[in-house]
């Protein structure tokens, strides 16, 4: 087993764990840290699956995209709570 395969196995196991924790958590806002772990693991795995220079941009775009999405969901949730 090369270091790349070992690292891919670790990333994939963490992604599965985080995905299951996202569904099991009942509080909506507390789901977001688990979603963040999941996107870390997926961004690491796509780099390990296909090492190519464009993959750096793909991983960064994916990671920044999910971060922006979490930011927007949490901000809208906070605004909605305040207005009620």
């Amino acid at each position, binding site marked *: 087993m090369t270091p790349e395969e070992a690292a891919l196995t670790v990333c994939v196991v963490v992604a599965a*764990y985080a995905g299951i924790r996202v569904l099991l958590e009942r*509080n909506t806002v507390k789901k977001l840290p688990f979603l*963040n772990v999941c996107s870390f693991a997926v*961004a690491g795995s796509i780099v390990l699956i296909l090492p190519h220079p464009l993959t750096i941009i793909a*991983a*960064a775009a994916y990671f920044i995209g999910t971060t922006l999405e979490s930011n927007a969901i*949490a*901000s809208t949730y906070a605004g909605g709570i305040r207005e009620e």
Partner: protein
Amino acid sequence: MPADPLHILIAAAVSWVNFIAIDLFFRLPERGGVSGASEIGRQIEAGGGALPGGYMMGNIVSSPDASAGTLLAACGVFIAGVPGGLLTALLVYLGNRVCHDPGYAGTTGCITATFIVYGFSLIGISPASFIAGMVIAILTIQGISSVHASRLLATLWGWRRA
């Protein structure tokens, strides 16, 4: 070269120290940067955690900070060496600007992590181990227990402020 579990554990410890130190240095636990981060901090406090640790976890979720910088720098060094790491520093800075964040923590973490990962690759620890190590490091902060992680971060923040 065969894989060594010890390498992944060393990489996880180094990445953990790198991103926690830089996040504490740039005062992420002081307040929630955006309203979403403050909301996450308040919900974690309502669930039994500590407020500064909750703010820091909220900031990690809602903007690419030093943890994202460390992961993407390891990815960049894995593919293209030091220039790849510096390219990811530029991308993390752009992402920070999009998220209404000054971007000092993410960019600094990315640049330091680039040279740390490159240095460890010279002594035989592959950058791939650092990708897995950073995933394990973020798992220990965000993924196990928000209550205990926020209390640990609040303790570290108390040392930083003292």
